[in-house]
């Protein structure tokens, strides 16, 4: 079971093999929990559960050719958007791709940072339009490829690549704005790229 591929496990689980489901869950639980934890303030158990159940329901096709992670994050994204819409309820319909978690209010984000500098970076991230935040997160932290991101977002690969570029640009702008105060700027000697490179080098 340990060396079975994600898609093999999924097929087995869909065929009723509980153990395969457990194995798949154990493999991807942490990424999915992380994905929701920083976007939803309250209980995320339900959302994680719905995401994994989404694999079985097959409302979104997983042909077995693309990446399972891209597929799984695609479901997670839908679950997230539905939840944010439910939380929002009142007021006008909102374009979740365009709105940032920061704008969605205090219930949305629960970021963790050990240091002030990291907090600033994460704050900047949470000011990005959601579609762009997701791209950055999936690329840098979850290490999805551009193709996998395209699958998760349900867009062509070219669009995903453009969005990643744009997202980086926006993040740099947000960082620059957030660090406008001299006192804080002095504490951030590295730009985002350096920081991200360090992060990736570590992993």
């Amino acid at each position, binding site marked *: 079971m340990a060396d079975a591929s994600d898609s093999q496990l999924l097929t087995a689980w869909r065929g009723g093999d509980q153990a395969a489901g457990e194995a798949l869950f154990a493999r991807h639980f942490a990424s999915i929990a992380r994905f929701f934890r920083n976007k939803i303030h309250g209980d*995320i158990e339900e959302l994680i559960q719905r995401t994994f*159940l989404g694999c079985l329901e097959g409302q979104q096709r997983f042909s077995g050719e693309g990446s399972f992670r891209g597929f799984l994050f695609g479901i997670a994204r839908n679950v997230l958007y539905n939840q944010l819409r439910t939380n929002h309820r009142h007021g006008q319909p909102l374009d979740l791709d365009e709105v940032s978690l920061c704008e969605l*209010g*205090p219930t949305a984000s629960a*970021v963790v940072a050990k*240091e002030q500098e*990291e907090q600033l970076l994460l*704050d900047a991230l949470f000011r990005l339009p959601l579609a762009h935040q997701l791209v950055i997160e999936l690329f840098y932290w979850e290490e999805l490829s551009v193709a996998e991101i395209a699958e998760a977002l349900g867009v062509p690969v070219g669009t995903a690549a453009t969005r990643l570029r744009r997202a980086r640009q926006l993040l740099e702008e947000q960082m620059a*704005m957030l660090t406008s105060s001299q006192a804080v700027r002095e504490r951030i000697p590295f730009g985002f790229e350096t920081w991200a490179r360090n992060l990736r080098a570590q992993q």
Partner: protein
Amino acid sequence: MDPERPGPRPGALSDLEAKLLAAKVGGRLFQRPAEPVQLGRYRLLGRLGQGGMSVVFRAQDPQLRREVAVKLLHSPRGQPDPEQLARLRREAQALGRLSHPNVVQVFEIGEADGQSFVVMEFVRGTTLREWLHERPRALGEVVEMVSQAGRGLAAAHAAGIIHRDFKPENVLVGEDGRARVVDFGLARANPGAPAETSTGGLDAPLTKSGTVLGTPAFMAPEQLRDPGRADARADQFSFCVMAYEALHGERPFEDLAAVSAGRVRPPPPGTAVPAPLREALLRGLRTDPTERWPTMDALLAALAAADSRATARPRRRRWLLGAGAVALAVAAVLGGRAWSARREAQASERQAVALEQRLARLLAAGEVEAAGHVLADVSDAQAGRAWTSWALLLEQAPGRSARAAWAHAYVFAGADAQARREALLGLARAAVATREEARSRASGPVPTRAGALPGDASPAATRADALSGAVIPTPTRDFALPGASTSAPALPGVTAPTPTRDFALPGAATPTPAPLPGVTAPTPTRDFALPGADTPTPAPLPGVTAPTPTRDFALPGAATPTPAPSPASPPRRRRATSPLPALPRRRPPPSPALPRQRRRALSRPSAPPSRPSRGPARVPTRPGCSR
């Protein structure tokens, strides 16, 4: 940025939290019982919240059969940072020395599976930030709540502990309405504290050089420059930022540059915050720590004094204007800002106003008994306010006693400290009225202690610890001759009031007496006195900022001259343009509560002034320790 520690992934989970979540979700997904997740003898039940370096769980203590909050280091990358571990232990030690109703109680420091954790009182409730956004809050209610938090802070200072990260997220408001200061994670002993209180390793340096701890928006300028310099007055500064934001709906400073420059924003237009209250906070926000209040206690006393003046004034207005203006003014209030609880608040507000009008009609028709039936049908949530309205109506009616109504109002006030106080003051007024009536009938003095106050009769007990007795506001009998009631015998613990002259000519310039520290209720005001009528010179006490004469509640249409600037108040600074682009503030969703309250206070004088709607309040139970 420290390249060796590139930072967590956003949303990284601690091992225990991941274990707990996986057990729960896995159990549900695969229909198997979730294995319990233990930490020492504590069984984890769920995650409450997390701060920068720690995560807090709700847990069951099987030995004592109680729920507790367990705080442990958030270590998504394996081993917890020893520096942070030391900080966690210091917090526990610091808090272990403290026992105060407004400081979260620490039970023990535990150790299990190589993890150190702190076991604390589990507070069911919300953070102060959430409490403020839950629904519109009356000015007095906000002042009372932040003052509670301030008392917790003062207690910590008295024990030689500096919080260093005080903000609304670090104050929990329990379902019991009690505020508790939490997250002394950055606490260290007060550098100026007596030696015996600064033991326990709290003096060790807590920060790696170059690391800012705390939340910049709430930090004092000296703390921003040098985190090691934070003392009790830096906490006072943070407290004032928090209180200012709670009252004005926005932070006092535009950005961090404004903090260092001491550039406070002008008050938002239409602010309901009375000048003395604002002045008290501005003093705590001075750039130079020595210019701030000497202690938190001094600040709290000034807030209490300023607040009691503010809450007592509008009440008097009700006797000036009839109920007829009410409906009109309610319509004017309806155009408020978008606000989730607005509709609910409005509906209950409309109900309350309609009820008030109905009671007024019944009273006018002499159908007091029918009014009793109406009041009996009011829901518990609305009953306190309904009885208060009724009592106020009775007070206006010649020959009626409001005592029974005030007693009901007291009972139904429940946990609402302000309403309780109002009812007690009403009872005291009723007592004075009864006594004087008796005296005017029988010419001999009959000093019956008619209106013994129920309970401990000391509304001040819930307020600043420093308060010893309450001053009861003027018994307002509209047509009393000036001086008539000066001989009213004092109630126990109650200072007898001076009469007011409600029907003097409007438009008169009137200085307001200086608030005395430690006094809850207003000094008799003479807002509508004749020009030149004996105007008492305000005698500012040492350490008390003299208030700018306020004219907040002048009669509509009365000419309001510009108040002379008080010598002690800082000159209003113009908003200077910073060379640096503004720091995008994490401004909380606008809290329309106060501006709305203000509009109401101005436009509908005859309605209960500063009372929140008593609709069934939904209290989300996100207990959560520390963010």
